[in-house]
């Protein structure tokens, strides 16, 4: 580029050069546009391939017999009855613990906690908990729940391990959805003479249920798919029976004996079948995987829809 002597005097070819540079940049942009789209589709395609693979290998295997049979040494007779019942019961424990504690912690940190070092510490602690590998929750459950508290290798131990694991998800979701409520809503409630808890109970919680529910669903979907912490507490055993029923036909009608029952769960059962040598059990693994995928994907889909609707319904 010529700048000798002045500014206005630019040779004609200078504009040509700018034109060329513009074209080059435009071409690079077009290329990246294509590459980006292609890679996005390929990445999403992997999810599709994964699903198709499970459908192809496992769909045939899913029938009434599969859902109502216990594990067996013969692949064709094995089923997931104890696994899905185990998963269901685990989720009851997990939800029963993680939701109240998580929501309470979220409310406390967002609405009550003073801004001080301790609160900072709790925040860093939650950020770290969210990133702690799931297997470490299993080790904690093994040392603490199984041996220290003597809950044994039970549904209670497993459910508590999973509850600790998803606690940060519930806390973060609660806080984020409380945070979207503008401060003047709180002020309006306080101006009418509400106590802090009344403001929370009458206003903030109802307005944030959409966000909290989204977080809870995502948390449960995560818990359903987890296997590492359950393996660590020793859940990978041959379970050919169901835990005691929680509902009795005679007084006191409710029983909590099932909490202390040994268990298996869907991801554990799948892991068991995947890691067997030979190909006999592969269709079983695929079938269990397909069931797991359908559960987690539909829960995530529901969470996405719920989030969209919550965003659309309430406009501040």
């Amino acid at each position, binding site marked *: 580029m010529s*700048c000798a*002597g*002045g500014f*206005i005097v630019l040779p004609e070819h200078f504009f040509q050069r700018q*034109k060329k*540079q*513009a074209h080059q940049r435009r071409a690079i942009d077009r290329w990246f546009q294509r590459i980006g789209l292609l890679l996005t589709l390929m990445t999403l395609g992997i999810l599709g391939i994964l699903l198709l693979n499970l459908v192809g290998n496992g769909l045939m295997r899913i029938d009434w017999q599969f859902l109502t049979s216990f594990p067996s040494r013969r692949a064709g007779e094995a089923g997931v009855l104890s696994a899905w019942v185990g998963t269901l019961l685990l989720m009851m424990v997990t939800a029963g613990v993680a939701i109240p504690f998580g929501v309470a912690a979220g409310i406390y940190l967002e609405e009550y906690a003073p801004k001080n070092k301790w609160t900072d510490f709790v925040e860093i602690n939650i950020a770290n908990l969210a990133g702690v590998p799931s297997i470490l929750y299993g080790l904690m459950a093994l040392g603490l729940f199984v041996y220290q508290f003597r809950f044994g290798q039970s549904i209670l131990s497993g459910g508590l391990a999973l509850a600790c694991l998803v606690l940060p998800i519930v806390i973060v979701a609660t806080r984020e959805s409380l945070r979207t409520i503008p401060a003047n809503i709180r002020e309006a409630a306080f101006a009418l003479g509400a106590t802090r808890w009344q403001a929370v109970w009458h206003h903030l919680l109802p307005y944030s249920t959409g966000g909290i529910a989204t977080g809870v669903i995502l948390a449960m979907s995560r818990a359903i798919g987890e296997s590492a912490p359950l393996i660590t507490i020793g859940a990978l055993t041959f379970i050919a029976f169901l835990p005691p029923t929680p509902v009795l036909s005679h007084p006191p009608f409710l029983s909590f004996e099932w909490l202390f029952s040994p268990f298996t769960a869907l991801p554990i059962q799948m892991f068991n079948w995947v890691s067997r040598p030979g190909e006999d059990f592969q269709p079983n693994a695929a079938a269990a995987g397909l069931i797991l995928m359908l559960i987690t994907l539909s829960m995530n889909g529901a969470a996405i829809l719920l989030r969209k609707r919550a965003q659309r319904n309430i406009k501040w």
Partner: protein
Amino acid sequence: MNPQSASSEVTGGVNQSSTKVRIEKLSFFYGTHQVLKSVSMDIPALQVTALIGPSGCGKTTLLRCLNRMHDLYPGNRYEGSVHVQPDGMDILGPGMDPIQVRMRFGMVFQKPNPFPKSIYENVAYGLRLQGMNKRRDLDERVEKALREAAIWDEVKSRLHQMAHNLSGGQQQRLCIARAIATDPDVVLFDEPTSALDPIATSKIEELIVELKKRVTVLIVTHNLQQAGRISDMTAFMYLGELVEFGSTNQLFTNPSKPQTEDYISGRFG
């Protein structure tokens, strides 16, 4: 200095009537909403032209038409033509690449927006885009631009520190240096002092007056005093139309349109 002699020659030779940018029947639409209504004006070379008018009158929109910034967002449409002298390039012409247009027009924004890079790299950015890669050339041009933007003495000892550490006024002068480093034909200022304190503002104003020795300046301002202080020509816009365009002196003392008079005397806006 070399540039000054060259530019004074040009101003002396072609007088103030030489047109740098000729805007003809320029209309602009956001979707179906027409924001500019057939604006025509000749922006004189090597002068400061101010665009004034109440907010929403389309002055910033007009400014951003000139370097095709509206192309960054979908649903925008131009009509009319804008020719740049001396070569007569139509920046709205078919097949004209906005990137090419932007390389000829510098722009300074409402708020200082230095890149998250060093002071040096901020100024060198445009130069690199125009193919300048040699360290020696870059050093020379960066220094020149910083001197012209009257910030060299403040930053010469810390060229490789992050630009964010500068004060608001310094950042804005850095952005001016960035805009003039590539020797653009025209520099567009979009309310460049609206985020600055009075002292920083007056520095920028001095700088703009100094700049017209070598570039054509178009400035949007909501500050009438500022337009009066620094511009040679003033255009008053209202509701997307160009109401009046003339020398600043004449427009401020003896406007020909009643709306202009109302606005200038503070009856609305």
